[in-house]
């Protein structure tokens, strides 16, 4: 019943049914977009700082950039996954006005339920393993909030991208995430109008990526804007695409590639390149 109601609501309010198609075909940088937001930490421990960056694609630089967090309450655990959080200005905090940004969140409450107590009803103690070891990542004692990058242009246009971040009440158990993952974007530096040029990306860890999103400022991507890993070479994963440049195009043509991380091992990295197109 709930599924039926949800589907009715979804029908009446919005539609995500076409999301893969839109992701595949909506690759043109024809409007301001924030297509990726990344952090160097999966979880921010007590006293730690996080590095936040975002990829903004537009024909002109934005007039202003804001890094926002929504749902974070000092001294209180929150779990916010609903983007409507940004609808209430009182729940939104601005933490930076430029990218990349560094943020050190205040501590959240240490009054957290005990991990083992919380799951006593669900899991029976496993007597065959060493239960004296400290519990793993204490997810129950972390706040999960939304981080967003909002860019505003002089003509009033805005674009937003977001990611989740966990803020733990204890020392961060996670080492900083490696932002400089080995992603190579191989793009010819020059091309002629009307050419079909090969684009190739090599990613260092095929298990950690679930999709490659391509963006171009003009032209047509013959493999659409959404590609998967197409072949493996040693420890590298490769994906490629073909860009058909318009016959009447000249000047710089931007190509961007975002290797999206997954929700559980979020590693979002990107590369951008420019092809100088001659008539």
């Amino acid at each position, binding site marked *: *019943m*709930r599924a*039926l*109601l949800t589907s*009715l*609501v979804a*029908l*009446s*309010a*919005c*539609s*995500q*049914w*076409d*999301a893969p198609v*839109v992701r595949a075909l*909506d690759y043109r940088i024809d*409007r301001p*977009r*924030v297509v*990726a*937001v*990344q952090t160097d930490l999966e979880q921010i421990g007590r006293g730690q700082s996080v590095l936040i960056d975002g990829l903004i694609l537009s024909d002109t630089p934005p007039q202003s950039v804001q890094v926002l967090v929504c*749902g974070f*309450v000092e001294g*209180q*655990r*929150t*779990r*916010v*996954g*609903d*983007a*409507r*959080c*940004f*609808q*209430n200005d009182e*729940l939104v905090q601005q933490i930076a006005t430029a990218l990349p940004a560094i943020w050190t969140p205040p501590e959240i409450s240490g009054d*957290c*339920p005990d991990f083992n107590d*919380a799951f006593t009803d669900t899991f029976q103690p496993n007597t065959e393993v060493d239960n004296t070891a400290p519990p793993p990542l204490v997810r*129950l004692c972390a*706040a999960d909030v939304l981080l*967003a990058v909002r860019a505003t242009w002089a003509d009033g246009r*805005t674009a*937003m*991208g*977001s*990611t989740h971040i966990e803020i733990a009440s204890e020392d961060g158990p996670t080492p900083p995430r490696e932002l400089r993952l080995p992603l190579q974007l191989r793009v010819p530096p020059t091309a002629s109008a009307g050419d079909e040029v090969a684009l190739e990306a090599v990613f260092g860890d095929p298990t950690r990526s*679930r*999709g490659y*999103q391509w963006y171009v400022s003009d032209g047509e991507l013959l493999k659409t804007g959404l590609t998967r890993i197409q072949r493996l070479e040693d420890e590298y994963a490769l994906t490629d695409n073909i860009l058909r440049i318009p016959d009447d195009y000249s000047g710089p043509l931007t190509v961007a590639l*975002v290797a*999206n*991380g*997954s*929700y559980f091992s*979020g590693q*979002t990295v990107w590369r951008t390149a420019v092809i100088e197109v001659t008539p």
Partner: protein
Amino acid sequence: MYLTVLIALAFADPGDLGSNAGHALNGELTGSVRARGSGDRLPCTLTVGDETVTCQEDGSFSLRLAPGTYSVTVQSEDFADLLATETVVTATTTEIVYRLQPYSNDTTIIVYDDGPREYVSRTVLSADELASVPGSFGDPIRAIQNLPGVARPAGPQGDIVVRGAEAINTGAYIDGMPVPFLFHMFVGRSVVNPAVLEDVEFFPGGMPSDFGDVTQAVVNARTYYEPPKQGLHGRVNVDLLDGGFGMTARQGPWSLSAGGRVSWVSGLIGISSQIIAKAGSDPSYKVGWVSPYYSDFQLRGTRQMGDYQLAVSFIGARDALKVVPDRWDRDGDGFHDPNPVDEVERPFDPNTLLDSQFYLGEVRLDGKRTEHKSTTRLVLGWDRQSSLFSEFGQLSQAPELGKVEQITVIAERSDIVRISDTLTVRGGGRFQMRPTRTESWRDGTTETPSVVGQDNRLTAGLWADAQLDTGRWWLSPGVRLNGHRFSGRNTVLPEPRLTARYDASNAIELTAFVGRFSQTPPGHRTAPGIGNPDLPVMQAWQTSVGLNSKLNNGITIDATVFASYMPHLTVTSQQISLATDPLNDFDNALTTVVTNGYADTRGAAVGLEAMARLRPQGMWHGWVGLTLSKSFREGADSWYPGDYDMPISAIVVAARKLPKNWQLSGRFRMSSGQPYTPSVSIYSSDEMYWNAYGGPINSERLPLLHSLDLRIEKEWLGERASWTWYVDVMNVYNRKNPFMPSFNSNYQRLTREVYVPIIPTTGLQVDF
């Protein structure tokens, strides 16, 4: 009664007619003229060429004519024209019965306000005459949507919105009794069977002082207290959506009227769904469907007692949207598996998405002396509205994911005393008690409602006004004292009202109105726990000036400029906050909770309504309406367009009588798209997904709305009954007019997934 039958000579020279009279080769045209429906014989006069021949007293006639084909025109000041083509054969008698339609019972389109003139903004729509408006599916009450300034709201609820006001601000009445809804959901037919409906009284604003507890408009469906005809008469109507009957009977001082309707569209949907599913899917799958169900009934007995009339009435209606869930035979045992949803105990039926019903009983005594008319009534009723829809399908009369139940007790007395030829005084009082119980079902996982609210709501009104008629000037100052009690608070508000009319000439009159109105917010909006008990009484000031003119060729032109200011309005609001989510506790961590609530705000509206109409005195009838208006609500930082703000709205309604009792009618509507709140798109990197939140309230509009509806009907006249077959097609060219916004997955593009498609229907109506 004066009746003329014109027989125009088509082929023969009228001058030859006399010489042919009595000729052995002539044919004979004989028959009679009767009133349609009642079958009463009518005395008449036949005019042939330059000659006028009077019918017999019993309506019979006999003419000897030269062989040929003749166009026959039947005219009467009290009856609609009747055109026919007759063929006269040599030495043969052609017998025919002409059944004439009284204007008050015509199947053409008519809008008139020639009734009592004590109101300046009232429009009275004749029930039978409006039934053929296309797109209304033969429902005269629904036809009021075709008037300037009127629209139906988005979504499934059966309401109308007037001058940009929310539907709750328009009072729905049946014979003066307030009812929760006047239209069935989705299909949109009214809850009163047309056969027992006398007319529809519609005030877009400027209600006189006897109407209270309303802040914008009034729709009052008036049914027969005293059927116009002796004997038994009625109507049976059957079409693809529903079937209904209505009858009136009058014998001596006693009268009886009854009507009812029940839908079967749900059965058709179910059968067709199963057929489609069986044709294209796994046989182990039993398809589910969602379908509307509706029914209504009306019953009244009346006794004339000298100068008094005693009536006992019962009315009721039910509207439901039910789900038949789909089933799988996953275990392969040959039987469809039970749905686990049905096995969970809940305070509601999970397969009933919407359920609205009301039942009212009334005892009424009317005094009918010319110098002193009075009405005394006692009403007892019960109503209930429930909804499993969330904020996107919210009903104006029911809580989001919840239920509201009310008992209604009304005691009313009103008097009209004619003091002199120039002065009439009216006064009265109404006491209304409504114990209201509300339940919230937002937490659908427990056996009991998550919140229960109770409120004993009272509304009392005393009113008096004077009507001064000095010839050219007609003035009516009045005042209403309205008391409201809800949420444990009492509010008393005086409501002065002034109506004026000036006859500038025989063809032009000017009107003006200014007045104050107040209204108790709906029960679920103030109920503790699920509503906002702090809401004040809704209030409005209205003013209007108008010009009504009658042209010689049967065309009337009406124009009204209106403005209203609402210092207190109850509107829906959405609050995003951090709180413990009852459904997803997250171990007491806070999360975003969306609370759809109600808030008090201010509103304003201004506009121009104009209508030019051609009355049914020829082959063509219809009207053209235009509305220019703006409706605003006050937000946190600025004023924004109201949910039903439609700056431009135009409508053309036309009907054409055709030979052999065919009639073709059409309606074209065009209006500004409804305002909506755009979504701000946020791309989530780690989910590769777009999320969104609401942007500036009502800062965007849906695309221009336009649609064409057509209706064709054919009538066969029997000896004791008339049969009418009709085809009504709504949205002929299948225009995708979204009635609510929906977006593609990245919230960059408005889609048109939610719209009313082309809806054809056909039916048969029998009047006897």
